[in-house]
C-alpha cells in the first residue's frame, strides 16, 4: 500500500514531537526549519527541549533514515502532506503574533507539490484556516487540533485520544493520503468545519481552566475552614457528571502561554461580537490571585517572625518534566525575594537565570541550613526527599509545598509547619 511522505515545517516543540511520533508510526518524515543551527543539532540528535522518550525515538529514526532534517524548504516538495507546526509567539497578555506563521506558509507553498495537502497544526484563532483560500484551494487544506502537553508530548502524539480535523467541507471524505496517516494512530477521527475545529482547541482549554478555577476557589475555602481538598476530589471524580479524569488539581495560576492565549482569543471575540464572557475575566482574575499564594503564606508564616530567613526554592520550570519557564510561578515569586538569602535548584532549568540567588547543584545543597523550604515545581525527584534529610539539613521547620509533593511524609506530626494548596488546619 502506498505510504505518503509527511513533511513538518517548523521544528518547534510541537513540530519535533509530532514528526518523531509520525516516524514511529511507520511514515517517512521530512522536517524543515529555516534555522540552520537547529537543523544541524537535530541531525546530531541534540535536542533543545526536554521530553520523556523523545531522545531515544529520534535516535532510532535518524539511524534508519526514517526522518530527515533540512533547512531547505525545497525538500518539502517530495511530501504528500505537509504540516505547518511552528510556534505561534504570544506577548505577556497572551496575544498571538501570526506574522511568522503566514511567512512560513508562503515559504512552504513556494515548494509544495501542486497536489500535496497542507495541514495547519499551530494554535491559530478561528477564521485563520479559511482565510488561506487566497493562497491555495481549500480542498487541499486541513486544520488539525494539536493536544500537546509539555512533559507528555511524545505520549500525546503517539496515542492521541482522537483527531479533530477541520475541513473545507466535512461531508466530503478526508483525502486518502491524509486519512491513511490519521488511521495509523488508531483513534477516533472527528471531521468538522474549520471554525469548529479551531474553536475546539480553545474550548478544551476553556473547560480545563474552568475546572482548575473551581478547584482553586474551593481549595482556598478548604484552607480556611479546615477541610482538605484532596479528600474531596475522589468523591467528585466518582460522580459521572464530573468524571474520573476531571482536572481538579488546584494550582498557582495559569502558566505556559497556551491557556492564556486561548482565553485572550475568546475575550477578543466576545468584545468584537458583543457576547457575555465575564466568566473568562473571572478565571483570569482567579489565576492572577493564585499567583500570590506562596508569597502570602511566606509573609504570614515566616516573615512575621523571621526578618532574615534563608529560603530554599526548589523548582524554576512552570511545571514538571519541562525546561519551559514561561509565566513560571517560581520566577514570579523570586522577584519579590531579592532582599533575602535565597538558594534555588531545578533539575533541568539553568539556575543562573536567577542571577542574584545562590544556584545550588543539588536538593541537599539548596536545603542546607534553610529556614524555609518552598517547592515551586513538583518535579518527581523532589519526592525522594526523606524526613531525616529534611530534619538534618534544614535549620528551620517551615515547608511551603503547594502541590503536596511531600504530603506523604506527615510533616505536621514531625514538628514542621506545613502549608499546601487546599489543606486547612483542623481546629
Amino acid at each position, binding site marked *: 500500500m502506498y505510504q505518503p511522505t509527511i513533511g513538518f515545517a517548523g521544528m518547534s516543540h510541537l513540530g519535533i514531537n509530532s514528526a518523531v511520533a509520525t516516524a514511529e508510526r511507520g511514515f517517512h518524515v521530512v522536517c524543515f526549519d529555516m534555522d540552520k543551527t537547529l537543523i544541524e543539532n537535530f541531525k546530531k540528535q541534540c535536542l533543545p527541549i526536554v521530553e520523556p522518550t523523545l531522545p531515544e525515538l529520534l535516535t532510532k529514526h535518524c539511524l534508519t533514515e526514517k526522518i530527515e532534517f533540512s533547512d531547505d524548504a525545497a525538500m518539502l516538495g517530495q511530501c504528500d502532506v505537509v504540516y505547518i507546526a511552528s510556534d505561534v509567539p504570544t506577548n505577556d497578555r497572551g496575544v498571538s503574533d501570526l506574522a511568522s506563521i503566514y511567512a512560513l506558509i508562503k515559504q512552504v507553498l513556494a515548494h509544495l507539490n501542486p497536489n500535496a495537502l497542507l495541514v495547519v497544526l499551530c494554535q491559530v484563532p478561528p477564521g485563520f484556516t479559511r482565510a488561506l483560500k487566497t493562497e491555495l484551494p481549500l480542498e487541499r487544506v486541513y486544520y488539525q487540533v494539536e493536544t500537546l502537553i509539555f512533559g507528555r508530548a511524545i505520549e500525546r502524539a503517539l496515542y492521541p485520544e482522537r483527531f479533530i480535523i477541520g475541513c473545507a467541507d466535512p461531508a466530503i471524505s478526508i483525502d486518502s493520503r491524509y486519512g491513511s496517516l490519521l488511521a495509523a494512530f488508531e483513534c477516533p477521527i472527528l471531521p468538522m468545519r474549520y471554525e469548529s475545529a479551531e474553536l475546539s482547541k480553545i474550548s478544551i482549554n476553556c473547560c480545563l481552566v474552568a475546572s482548575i478555577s473551581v478547584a482553586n476557589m474551593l481549595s482556598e475555602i478548604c484552607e480556611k475552614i479546615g477541610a482538605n481538598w484532596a479528600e474531596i476530589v475522589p468523591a467528585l471524580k466518582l460522580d459521572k457528571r464530573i468524571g474520573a479524569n476531571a482536572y481538579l488539581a488546584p494550582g498557582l495560576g495559569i502558566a505556559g502561554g497556551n491557556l492564556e492565549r486561548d482565553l485572550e482569543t475568546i475575550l477578543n471575540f466576545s468584545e468584537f461580537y458583543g457576547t457575555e464572557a465575564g466568566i473568562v475575566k473571572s478565571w483570569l482574575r482567579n489565576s492572577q490571585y493564585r499567583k*500570590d499564594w506562596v508569597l*502570602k503564606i511566606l*509573609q504570614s508564616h515566616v516573615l512575621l517572625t523571621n526578618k532574615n530567613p534563608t529560603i530554599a526554592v526548589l523548582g524554576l520550570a512552570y511545571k514538571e518534566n519541562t525546561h519551559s519557564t514561561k509565566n513560571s510561578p517560581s520566577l514570579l515569586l523570586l522577584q519579590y*525575594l531579592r532582599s533575602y538569602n535565597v538558594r534555588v535548584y531545578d533539575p533541568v532549568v539553568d539556575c543562573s537565570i536567577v542571577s542574584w540567588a545562590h544556584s545550588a547543584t543539588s536538593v541537599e545543597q539548596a536545603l542546607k541550613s534553610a529556614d524555609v523550604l518552598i517547592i515551586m515545581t513538583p518535579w518527581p525527584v523532589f519526592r525522594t526527599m526523606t524526613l531525616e534529610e529534611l530534619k538534618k539539613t534544614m535549620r528551620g521547620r517551615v515547608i511551603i509545598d503547594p502541590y503536596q509533593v511531600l504530603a506523604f511524609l506527615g510533616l505536621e506530626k514531625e514538628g514542621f509547619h506545613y502549608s499546601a494548596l487546599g489543606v486547612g488546619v483542623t481546629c
Partner: protein
Amino acid sequence: MLKHLNKTKIKPTRVVVLGSQGFVGRYALRQLKSEGIEAVGISKNEVNLLHVDAEKILLEKLNLQDTLVVVSALAPCKNTAMLIDNLRMMQIVGNVIEKISLSHVVYISSDAAYADDITLATEDSVTAPTSFHGMMHSCRELILKQAAKKTPLAILRPSLLYGRGDPHHGYGPNRFIRLAEKNEPIVLFGNGEEKRDHVFICDVAHIIALVVQHRSEGILNLASGHAYSFREIAEIVLSEIECVSEIQATPRNNPIMHRHFNIAALYKAFPAFQPTQFKMGLKQVLQQSTLSMETT
C-alpha cells in the same frame, strides 16, 4: 500596583504635608521627620483651601521639586455641600500642581472609593462609591490624575484606620477603646458580625514615608491583610482594658457585608514591610498617651 521610580530609598528634598493637623497628617509628618526627611506641614490655619486666595497662597508656600502629600479634607463627607467643598479644595490643589513643577504627589484616599459589594478588595477592584465620602475621594483622585499628568502620582487607599488621637468617633476600635476607657457599654450593630480590616495609623505613616522615598506612582491599598468582626474587635479591646464595659448587640437593620483586603500588592511593593496585626497595634495604642504633635 505601585511602581517605584527610585529602586532604593532616596530622601526627597522636602516633603509638604497638606492637612498636617488631621489624624493622618500628624502621624505622617512625625514619621517623615523621624526618618530624617525634611518635612513641613500646612494646615487650614496657613492655607484655607476654600478661601478665594487659596491657590495663590499655596503656590507661595511650595518650592520647586517639593513632594506634596495631600491629606486635607473635610471628613467624613456626609452631604452634597461637603462634597462640593471637598472637590473645590482639590480643584485648588490641582490648579497648583499644574502650575508648579513638583517632584511627586501622594494622595491619601480611602477604600470607601470601592463599590460596597466588594468583599475582597484589591487595587483592581471596581471603584463605584455609593457614599458621599467615597464619591469625594473618587472624584478627588480623578482631579489629581488630570492635574498630575507630568508628575508622578501615588494614590493610597487605606482601609479603616485606628490609632491614638483619631478625632472621629467612627464605629470600630477607636470608639470601642474610648467607650471601654469610660466604662460605657460597647453597642454593636446587630451582633457585630461584619468583618473589616483595620490598619494601624503608624503603618499608614510608615508607608507614606516609604512611598515618598521610593517616589512611587500608582495605586496601593493600605490594610493589614486580616479582617476581624466588630464583635471580635470589641472582645479584644475588653480583654486589654480593665473596665466594666459590656458588649451589647442590637437588632440588625442592614445585611451583613464583609470586606477583606488582598494585600499582595503591598507585600510586593515593600517586601520588608510587615503590617502591624490588630492585637499588637491595639497594645501600642493603649500604651501611647495622647499624642502631642509638632505642627511645623
